[in-house]
């Protein structure tokens, strides 16, 4: 065994640690985490070649989409800035900058959960190292600069500066300087919001309120759209938007976007321009200061998490010996009062208890119904023939709940060991989980169906209703069957109602994710060719004839899968337990 050396020196006083050493160490840490995540070879698994092919296909599809997401706002911002200056609408610059800020912050807030799930280390964990607060602040400011929202936001502001510079070269130097500070302000605003949200979202109740607010925001946006569509012609709508922008000009002058715009436009009045620039700097400093206050608390060991609720103190039990009933005196087991087996009933109850305490999931289930109401009232949608609207709305409502069928054991985490160790049939556990999912799906579909039938402006043909019902049975049964198989073969641990997801074995799940998307969207989109054929051949019952047998086959397929669930879990128990027990 090796001997440790150098212990004598530890008692001597130590020289100060250079800031560069610690900052470089953290930079190196991030780099190694990135490199290891990208290039680390994992043990070969079955289906690796298929995964690789799917991975390449995914990149071919996704990368151009990502490029569009980056190029679109950047090119648009540059063009609008150029137009504002060259066509004599300098007042449009402030709304443009405000728009970039709003989009930047909105994407950051929404991307928070994704970013948290993707990141492989928590910057707050650096607190345990011997860092001074100043260094910690610098590190927290720098870490996370390469998030998509920051990259796109910074590029958009650079494009604005370039656009202004092309339109009027004399404005190029101030535009570049002001946009640099404006970008810094946005970065600190994002950091400030993120740090405070991290504090608030640590509490489950706040997470639920936040989910509800985001859902309400999306619903309100659609209501706004509905109001505009139903009251104004497109031309009127555009002028209404321009009027809003113009009338808000005086208010925008008191916001950072107004300061930034004025600092560029008033370049011929240096004192006024400098005052505006100073105001922008003050805003940046304010956001940095508020961010710093939050960080300071974290640095000093603030507790982020649910308050420990142990109000009900254990009462000391009387120290009397518990009376031991003799085996003969044991009451005979009660006859089952439920049509469900005790295992299914117990698992169903457990699923219900988890669902009941998960407000975010409830909101997620209710939100699509609100959208169905809005879409049903919308003129644009009412223009679609009622025979197309019902199946389309059902597909929209079902896509969310069906997605959950592909990882039914995910929320159990290490708890799956109880199922594996208990003397029960795993098939019963799967049945219980699917029953709960099915109850939610049927309830949601029935509510959506009722809403559409009530709000429809024309009666929905009976052939369409029957075809849609068959299609729904087919889609649900098929997704249940494939979802059950994938839940066993590629489970992934997650915390219900929490944005933070545990990232385990991502490469193994890439194939699964693509398969899920293909089945989910494929089964949804199958309606389209059938509907076209039905319309082309003037056979209104064609869809019912197609989806009826498919529904029967899917139900049969699901029954077959259920019958094999036991064997399947036994065959995959190593992966099944390993992935979930990594949690």
């Amino acid at each position, binding site marked *: *065994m*090796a001997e*440790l*050396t*150098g*212990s*004598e*020196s*530890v*008692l001597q006083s*130590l*020289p*100060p*640690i*250079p800031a560069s*050493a*610690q900052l*470089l*160490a*953290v930079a*190196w*840490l991030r780099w*190694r*985490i990135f490199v*290891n*995540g990208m290039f*680390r070879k994992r043990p070969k698994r079955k289906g690796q070649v298929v995964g690789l092919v799917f991975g390449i296909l995914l990149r071919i599809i996704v990368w151009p989409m990502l490029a569009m997401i980056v190029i679109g706002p950047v090119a648009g911002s540059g063009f609008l800035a150029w137009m504002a200056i060259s066509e004599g609408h300098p007042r449009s610059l402030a709304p443009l900058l405000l728009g970039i800020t709003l989009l930047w912050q909105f994407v950051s807030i929404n991307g928070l959960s994704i970013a948290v799930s993707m990141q*492989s*280390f928590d910057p707050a*964990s650096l*607190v*345990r*190292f*011997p*860092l*001074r607060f100043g260094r910690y602040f610098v590190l927290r400011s720098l870490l996370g600069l390469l998030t998509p929202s920051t990259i796109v936001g910074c590029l958009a502001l650079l494009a604005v500066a370039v656009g202004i510079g092309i339109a009027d070269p004399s404005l190029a130097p101030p535009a570049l300087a002001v946009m640099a500070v404006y970008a810094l302000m946005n970065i600190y605003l994002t950091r400030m919001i993120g740090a405070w949200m991290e504090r608030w979202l640590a509490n489950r109740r706040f997470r639920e309120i936040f989910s509800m607010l985001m859902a309400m925001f999306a619903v309100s946006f659609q209501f706004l759209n509905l109001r505009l569509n139903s009251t104004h012609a497109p031309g009127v709508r555009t002028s209404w938007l321009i009027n809003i922008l113009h009338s808000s000009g005086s208010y925008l002058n008191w916001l950072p976007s107004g300061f930034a715009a004025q600092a560029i436009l008033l370049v011929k009045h240096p004192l006024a321009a400098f005052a505006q620039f100073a105001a922008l700097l003050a805003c940046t400093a304010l956001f940095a200061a508020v961010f710093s206050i939050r960080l300071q608390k974290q640095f*000093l*060991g*603030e*507790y982020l998490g649910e*308050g*420990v*609720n*142990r*109000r009900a103190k*254990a*009462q*000391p*039990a009387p*120290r009397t*010996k*518990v*009376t*031991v*009933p003799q085996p003969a005196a044991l009451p005979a087991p009660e006859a089952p009062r439920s049509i469900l087996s005790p295992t299914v009933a117990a698992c169903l109850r457990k699923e219900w208890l988890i669902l009941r305490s998960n407000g975010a999931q409830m909101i997620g289930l209710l939100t699509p119904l609100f959208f169905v109401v809005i879409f049903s009232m919308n003129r644009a949608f009412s223009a679609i023939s009622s025979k197309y609207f019902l199946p389309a709305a059902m597909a929209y409502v079902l896509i969310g709940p069906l997605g959950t069928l592909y990882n039914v054991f995910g929320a159990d985490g290490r708890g799956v060991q109880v199922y594996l160790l208990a003397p029960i049939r795993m098939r019963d556990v799967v049945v219980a989980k699917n029953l709960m999912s099915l109850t939610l799906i049927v309830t949601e579909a029935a509510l959506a169906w009722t809403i559409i039938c009530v709000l429809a402006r024309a009666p929905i043909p009976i052939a369409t209703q029957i075809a849609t019902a068959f299609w729904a049975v087919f889609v649900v049964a098929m997704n249940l069957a494939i979802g059950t198989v994938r839940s066993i073969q590629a489970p992934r641990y997650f915390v219900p109602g929490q944005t933070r997801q545990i990232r385990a074995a991502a490469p193994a799940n890439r194939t699964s994710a693509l398969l899920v998307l293909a089945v989910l969207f494929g089964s949804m989109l199958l309606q389209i060719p059938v509907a076209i054929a039905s319309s082309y051949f003037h056979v209104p019952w064609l869809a019912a004839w197609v989806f009826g047998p498919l529904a029967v086959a899917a139900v049969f397929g699901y029954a077959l899968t259920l019958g094999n669930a036991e064997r399947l879990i036994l065959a995959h128990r190593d992966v099944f337990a390993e992935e979930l027990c*990594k949690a």
Partner: protein
Amino acid sequence: MTTPAIDTTALTRRFDDFTAVDNVNLCVDAGQFFGFLGPNGAGKSTTIKMLTGLLAPTSGSIRILGEDLEANSAEIKRQIGVVPEGMALFGRLTAEEYLQFVGRMYGLDRTTTLNRTRELLDFMQLANEQKKLITDFSHGMQKKLALAAAVIHGPKVLFLDEPFEGVDAVAAGTLKSMLLRMIARGATIFLTSHVLEIVERLCTHIAIIHRGQLVAQGSLDELRAGAWRAGKAGSQEAVATPGAEKRSLEQIFLEIVGTDREGNPAATSPEQELSWLS
């Protein structure tokens, strides 16, 4: 009089209306191997988090090596090593990369970091796992790595939260000898463990926390002699018990935590029986 390595005054931590640590006065002299015991949920990990600056106390003060923790946290963190409850490793690094990172964060130069990393990996029998990511390590291997990271900078005070949990017998023996050598060279070790045999064998002084309150503090012999009824002002009432020197730490522990503050039996005791298991 020497400065205590760890000294807390009226240390308290509340979570909403629940008091996890209540008015704890701890004093650990330099060079002691100090065992901090308590049942599950007694407040051990919360205390360690506060002592290492990871959790702010609601009230009270902490002095490590004679310095106030809140005022000099960066300097104190340089002098302490911690194996926290959750180990706090970066899963996507290899063991070698992790130790190098930790060494650099504690201000060690490149050569020293590399040498100590190599030595520690060899010492902890992790040298053959250099290509593996930490996330793929077993629990015991992760524990050994966390310990290696805690000592790479040669700390004066070492806080260990369940360091032997999941570690194999061979490695546990190696670790124990390493810890004893550190003590011999003047370091202070603050250890929590549920394995009372280990604590009894290694620790010279022991404190027991129960429901957030410090219910006993002293040397093992003092505890055996029954000097654990610490009064609120810190006075100790020695109660001589016949055959006390033969009592094991487990017996003392059960005697202490088996009763509440008023001396009534605790909620569960070994004498209780389950109706269907008798």
